[in-house]
């Protein structure tokens, strides 16, 4: 989404009156709010609060930088699932700079960026796709003759919040895989003075991006994040724990070779390399492309693309992860995270510890503890009285 709706949301107009003017019924709007509330992992009783907050918000500017990347994350957001109302709410934003879609080019495009940054200083939302190459003084990615690093630093300085979309912006992704020829790093390696939300995945599911923006607009702060900056509402659960094929894992029913009799029954892909036991991602819950399917659902093992360093730590992709005991030993399956990534390069060891048991335990504990707010509230919308809803 983040597409231009051609129904403009006028300055200083509330979303409520805007929707009314667009002839979106109250019922449709509440239906959308219920859906977005579910995606955000909030109790359904929160839906009216989401609706109230959304109706009151004004339209903030969004600046979207595309740095060293493949445009796949933009394409993913363009495929976002929600119907017209979704376009609206995410169009809630005034998308002032976005290379793939904007009409202007050259210095007219750069002027649009500078004008928006100046007019909305301290208030705009910065979305970044792509990594930042640091070797050779940054000449591996330039726009308008300036390096990605300079452009990011300038745009981040005036941003209210920064959302790093996709594995490249998260940690560098494929170009940062061994031996990282261009010295690619993620946004949080450059932006240190404000919280960076990492929407992990190569690419992430577009709906997670839009839901994160809705969260920010609704609650006046970014969502609760895990140790790696990923929103808990999307990355709080392990694929292995949510997988419809988990029963086959527990029963010892495994695909041993693609297209074998087990594959034609839709059994567990762990023996052909599935990285679901070490991957935190909403794929099995949200699914892809208007809930059509997801990788394991289409018979291919998970490659772990929401985890930092997955190109090195999860490959070879078709090799079985070590030490996951079979049949129904839940404790051992939990431990897989710690053993994961093993065999990969030494630099990954710290990562393995971080994504392993510690993660799982921390998440379980987090559900029972009061949630600590992790971000300073940005300006526009007044947060509802009980922002957590937990």
């Amino acid at each position: 989404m983040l597409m231009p709706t051609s129904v403009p949301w006028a300055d200083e107009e509330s979303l409520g009156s805007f929707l009314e003017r667009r002839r979106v019924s109250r019922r449709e709007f509440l239906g959308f709010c219920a859906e977005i509330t579910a995606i955000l992992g909030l109790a359904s009783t929160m839906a009216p609060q989401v609706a109230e907050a959304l109706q009151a918000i004004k339209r903030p500017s969004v600046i979207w930088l595309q740095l060293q990347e493949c445009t796949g994350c933009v394409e993913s957001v363009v495929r976002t699932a929600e119907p017209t109302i979704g376009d609206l709410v995410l169009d809630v934003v005034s998308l002032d700079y976005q290379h793939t879609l904007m009409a202007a080019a050259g210095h007219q495009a750069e002027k649009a960026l500078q004008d928006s940054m100046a007019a909305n200083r301290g208030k705009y939302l910065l979305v970044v796709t792509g990594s930042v190459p640091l070797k050779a003084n940054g000449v591996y990615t330039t726009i308008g003759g300036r390096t990605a690093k300079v452009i990011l630093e300038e745009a981040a300085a005036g941003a209210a919040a920064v959302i790093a979309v996709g594995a490249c912006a998260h940690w560098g992704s494929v170009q940062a895989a061994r031996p990282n020829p261009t010295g690619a790093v993620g946004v949080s390696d450059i932006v240190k003075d404000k919280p960076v939300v990492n929407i992990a995945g190569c690419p992430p599911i577009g709906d997670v991006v839009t839901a994160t923006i809705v969260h920010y607009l609704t609650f006046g702060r970014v969502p609760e994040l895990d140790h790696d900056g990923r929103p808990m509402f999307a990355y709080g659960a392990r694929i292995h724990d949510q997988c419809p094929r988990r029963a086959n894992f527990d029963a010892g029913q495994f695909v041993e070779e693609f297209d074998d009799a087990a594959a034609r029954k839709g059994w567990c892909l762990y023996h052909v390399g599935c990285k679901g036991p070490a991957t935190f991602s909403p794929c099995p819950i949200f699914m892809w492309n208007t809930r059509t399917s997801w990788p394991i659902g289409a018979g291919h093992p998970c490659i772990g693309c929401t985890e930092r360093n997955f190109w090195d730590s999860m490959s070879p992709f078709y090799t079985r992860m070590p030490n996951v005991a079979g049949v129904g030993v839940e404790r051992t399956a939990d431990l897989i995270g710690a053993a994961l990534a093993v065999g990969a390069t030494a630099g990954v060891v710290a990562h393995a510890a971080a994504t392993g048991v510690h993660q799982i335990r921390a998440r379980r504990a987090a559900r029972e503890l009061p949630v600590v707010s992790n971000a300073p509230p940005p300006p526009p919308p007044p947060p509802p009285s009980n922002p957590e809803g937990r």
Partner: protein
Amino acid sequence: MATTKVVVDPITRIEGHLRIEALAENGRIANAWATSTQFRGIEIVMQGRDPRDAWAFTQRICGVCTVVHAVASCRAVEDALDIRIPANANIIRNLMVGMQFVQDHVMHFYHLHALDWVDVVSSLSADPTRSAQIAASISPWPNNSATHFREVQNRVKTFVQSGQLGIFTNGYWGHPAYKLPPEVNLIAVAHYLEALDWQRDVIRLHTVFGGKNPHPNFLVGGMASAINLDETATINAERLTDIHDMIRRAQRFVEQVYWPDLVAIAGYYKDWAAIGAGTGNYLACGEFPSADIRDIESLYFPRGIILNRELGRVHSYDQRAVAEFIHSSWYEYSQGDAAGLHPYDGETKPSYTGPPTPWTYLQDEKQKYTWMKAPRYEGKPMEVGPLARMLVAYASGHEEARALIGEALGRLGVGAPALFSTLGRTAARGIETVLIARQLPRWYDDLVARIKGGDVRTFDGAKWEPSSWPAEARGYGYLDAPRGALGHWVRIADGAIRNYQCVVPSTWNCSPRDAQGQMGPYEAALTSNHPLVDPERPIEILRTIHSFDPCMACGVHVLDATGKVITEVKVQ
């Protein structure tokens, strides 16, 4: 005679990062240089990895043409290891690549290219009733009502009046180069919005077979999506019905919206049929095998080369004649800058020699100026893409292509030479989209017929285990992608990738000058009878560059981290 230096950076509404520098003289472009400003080094990353993983790495070269690198990579590895995929897997790949073409070309037309020809602001003064009459005269599309067009117009009106133009900020609205009447502008704006919803639906074909889009999953040896009509988690009647309906909606939109719009809009811009011709050499590697990929005769779009715009003769294409040069590119070769290397022996060592950033005007340096290498075929620059494919098909006697090209030329009242132009490039993209949209139901029917006959195989695992591989192997995977001829060359040694190289459509089209001073296709097109009325508002440059549909992340690549050159080239 006044000469003006022009810089357009960033070129927007493309994939990736592209800079154009030009010299404008008296309303014309006297000289032009195309600079790719991003380098990622993915093939260096691939050294030493499992060849069965290669598709996933190379797929991430591009998230727009998100299936083509993955399939080309599978084909390269399958060529190296002599793997023959089952017929069902070939059909499924054709469906996925075919739907990629259809979705990608439609999005290119409406969301990347249209704003070069369509003045959004002008649509405000349209008479929606008249728009509906015009639309009804060219298409039976049911949404083309006056009511619908009026609603879209009201939306645009409020949008413009708000003063917050979002992505439409600073567009070249009101530029004299815009020629469409307000009513046609309004039709195009309405379809811009409709196409956004449409693309989200039809691309789900990738999700059914590959689990997601962008970046659906593929598999060396076939496809991972097993077929079983009697299970829920496999390709069954429910999934097939979904596919069938997506194909129907894809074809309908192409025939009733995209194609009529394209022909109608082209009618107002016939002068662009004499602008932007370019190199005059065209290369198509061929695509959509109905049998094994090695059977060139089974390709739906034929393989071949056309030289010097001579449609009377189609030359054969042989991958051995491809070589890449770095005369103007920020790389080093161990044999020096004059060498041309075949991709099996490709070297890539980035070596930036440009000025320190920020740049103002690169060409003041008179040095190397891009991250793009210069591929040449028998020493010649070649244009690749829809125009190359349609010209080769036309000249090869492809009946369906000839009929549609003839229809388009007839409706525009122009001859075949009009194809060699900016407008011809854009028209050829539409023509091939119609052809592929008509192929989709045929492939679907083939798949269903095979399943009905009892064949559900989607994968051949005979060569899956590395123990079954030779100690050394090499392979070539080709795929004529939406933006043109794509090639992957892989060398495998001791079960791991030893060298991997891609020569990509945008590498051909965005290539810089070579040692002989031959321009690449972008540069040649921008200097072929090319106007530039107002250097401050270079809409003409955008028209011609967008007619190629640049994909810059694809174009720039690099290989051979070790710097080893494997010298014994045994020619295939």
